[in-house]
């Protein structure tokens, strides 16, 4: 494979452009705005963790979030209805460029934070980050469709609707 991962990803984004546009309309009614202005100004990403607020200590966050260090700020609040604690985090320095398409393909500035937040939730709830690789598989010929999917799979842990 001669393309870099980034190259494959942008190829992926191009080839699935119409799907992404469709999905964009589905997930974000305001997606008619130009790309780059899609991300919410506040920048908070959030997950709800089934733990008491006292058990989600932002001074001692699980490794995946802690590793981002001073780049992020975090906050918590109780979730209604016994659903646990809402854990939110955002980049202190928020560059522009989080269009819905970039978010769906994990290429936005918050991509690493999004996956760190999901992993932190896993650590708090299930005690560890679930690993899927290496999963047994057979021969994978480098077809365009296959490479596209592989690229999307690689970024899928970081990708999301917001």
């Amino acid at each position, binding site marked *: 494979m001669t393309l870099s991962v980034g190259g494959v990803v942008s190829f992926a984004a191009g080839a699935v452009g119409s799907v992404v546009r469709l999905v964009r309309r589905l997930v974000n009614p305001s997606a008619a705005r130009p790309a780059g202005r899609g991300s919410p100004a506040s920048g908070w990403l959030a997950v709800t963790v089934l733990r008491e607020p006292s058990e989600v200590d932002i001074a001692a966050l699980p490794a995946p979030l802690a590793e981002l260090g001073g780049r992020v700020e975090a906050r918590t609040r109780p979730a209604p209805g016994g659903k646990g604690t809402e854990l939110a985090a955002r980049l202190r320095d928020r560059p522009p460029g989080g269009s819905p398409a970039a978010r769906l393909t994990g290429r936005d500035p918050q991509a690493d934070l999004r996956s760190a937040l999901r992993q932190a939730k896993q650590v708090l709830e299930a005690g560890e980050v679930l690993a899927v690789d290496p999963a047994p598989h057979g*021969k994978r010929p480098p077809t365009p469709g296959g490479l596209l999917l592989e690229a999307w799979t690689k970024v899928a842990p970081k990708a999301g609707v917001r």
Partner: protein
Amino acid sequence: MKAVTWRGVNKIGVEDVPEPTILNDHDIILEVGLSTTCGSDLHLLGGYIPAMRAGDVLGHEFMGTVVEVGHGVTKHHVGDRVVVVSFIGCGQCWYCRQGLWSLCDNGNPNPGITEALWGQSIGGCFGYSHAMGGWAGSHAPYIRVPYADQGAFAIPDGVSDERALFASDAAPTGWTGAHQAGVEAADVVAVWGAGGVGQMAARAAMLMGAERVVVIDRYDNRLEQVRTHIGAETLDYEQVDVPGELREMTGGRGPDVCIEAVGMEAHSPGPQYLYDQVKQQLRLQTDRPTAVREAIYACRKGGTVFTLGVFAGLVDKFPLGAVMNKALTLRGAQQHGQRYVPQILEHMSRDELRTEHLATHVMSLDDGPKGYEMFKNKEDGCVRAVFRPGA
């Protein structure tokens, strides 16, 4: 080790793949005893769920023997005979705690794909594409099972492998449909599809006290299985007008609960079949919802329609007017197996649930391509092709 893999649209292979290893503390490694084809695999085979990569190991309905356990596993030991639920649930998130296991927040390491499609991601599933986590499937001698204390269940002595196998997917799917659709004593329940899933939904409805259960299909051998092994009534949709017949059976009301167990590749005898197929092939709709439409028309006012059949994206000509004006409840779900397997295994031990008749063709992994061919085309009365990796 040898495994049955997806090689492309309508292409199944048998090839060498590496053996799985324990990656998380809550994993076990299972030596697969039996692993079956499921109607859901046909959607992968046909390319309707476009997140399969050539070389992916297929199979998500299986049982076997524990050969290795991770440090965090407390319920299982080497040598235990267990059946494993197709969906991977952590048991600790809010959804798992609500019993909505297939919605687990933590079981799918690739949440970005289904979030893009549906707005939220659901749990992971063995052998069911990279959208559902990229987990290797069970058509192989060994499989890694994460969150094993939650997803693997000891098989009671006296329940055969062939019976227990279907406590992995077909039976819990049927239980999910009947229970979540709110089947109650004295209900009349209609089930579309007499495959493994439809048959199990019918049996679940009967055990939940339904007054009358009717299963609809066009294959004689499957309808015959429903009458002999499940004990429900049947209708052949090529012989009768299904909504009319159901109305007559229910004093003009229509069934209280309609369970659809057909899915996105539904067949129909009318001209709309051609319409749906062309639109699906042109990618103007991703799914053919024939049976759901019929279920909505047939259902009594204020009744419930439940889609157990798998749908991936968008459908066309959806009778929303009937849903709204008849005050229907429309629900669906992937199976919440971890919630239902204990009661299913009890029913199996008491002979109240028999499933071995579903395994019409048992074969070795080498016969993978032939097994899928037979299952897809329903050749020789095939209801499920089952692989025995040890054979």
